[in-house]
């Protein structure tokens, strides 16, 4: 009897702490991805200080601040969602998760408007193929209208870094929708909240990256 129960436990054994530790390792690989961008930003900024400041003037501090507050609020609702699930309040947990998804979407919409206004000023991320086909921006490709090198670098980094960050928001949003569905089906429940917990860790990591992106692009003009 005793032996049998031990072997059943072995089969169902799930190491929640180990899984979480593994997930943290994954988060560090994400952190290093962004760290490479931050390093490139730091080196180019120190080499082209004036150009970086002039280009940063064109970014709207108000929009950046608004998005920062939205993302921080989404991190709060994520924590509240996990707390609610762990306390057995499944419905409340789902509501907070929906709030989190909504705030993430709001962040993306605002970012979309911001990018769009940059596109209106011929500032966008270009590909070598596009430039060869004559579809490059006159401001960012060699020619009479080209901006100084430092500003071209600034806009390139701005689109790459905020774009990679936005991609993570989209991935986080899709993940939350899947988790929502699983809570609905009951496979994620107060006794098994691990997936929501890791989804939350991912979301906080995305928030963490933005905490550093925000001052470097919107504030140090």
């Amino acid at each position: 009897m005793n032996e049998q129960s031990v072997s059943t436990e072995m089969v169902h054994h799930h190491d929640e702490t180990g899984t979480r530790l593994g997930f943290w390792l994954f988060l560090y690989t994400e952190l290093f991805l962004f760290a490479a961008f931050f390093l490139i930003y730091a080196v180019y900024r120190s080499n082209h200080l004036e150009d970086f400041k002039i280009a940063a003037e064109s970014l709207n501090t108000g929009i950046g601040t608004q998005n920062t507050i939205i993302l921080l609020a989404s991190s709060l609702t994520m924590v509240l969602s996990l707390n609610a699930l762990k306390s057995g309040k499944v419905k409340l947990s789902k509501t907070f998760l929906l709030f989190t998804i909504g705030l993430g979407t709001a962040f993306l919409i605002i970012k979309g408007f911001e990018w769009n206004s940059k596109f209106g000023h011929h500032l966008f991320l270009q590909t070598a193929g596009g430039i060869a086909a004559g579809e490059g921006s006159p401001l960012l490709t060699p020619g009479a209208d080209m901006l100084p090198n430092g500003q071209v670098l600034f806009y390139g980094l701005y689109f790459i870094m905020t774009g990679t960050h936005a991609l993570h928001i989209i991935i986080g949003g899709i993940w939350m929708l899947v988790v929502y569905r699983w809570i609905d089906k009951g496979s994620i429940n107060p006794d098994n909240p691990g997936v929501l917990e890791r989804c939350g860790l991912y979301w906080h990591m995305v928030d963490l990256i933005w905490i550093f992106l925000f001052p470097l692009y919107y504030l140090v003009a």
Partner: protein
Amino acid sequence: MNTQRENISSRIPIIIFSLLIFLTILTVLSSNLVLGDAGSVVLAMFIASIKASLVLTFFMHLNHEPLIFKLFLGVAFLTLLSIFILTFSDYSFRGLA
């Protein structure tokens, strides 16, 4: 199945959120101070680091994790720091010799 659950308080997350908003406003306001370039970047990064520590400690619950989680964070941080220092010890002295 365990139906009797402890009620996890939402007080701490809300306090931390308020602090984060306060620090965000502080960093926006402080960007108007005339501190010179190095000063304003250092101040902005200092405030960002405090915000990051709050998120890591309370939102990501590192305060409730075993020691090994904190060691991992330390190793990741030191690795990042080494890469930044090594890169700048190169770039800062280029063109001097």
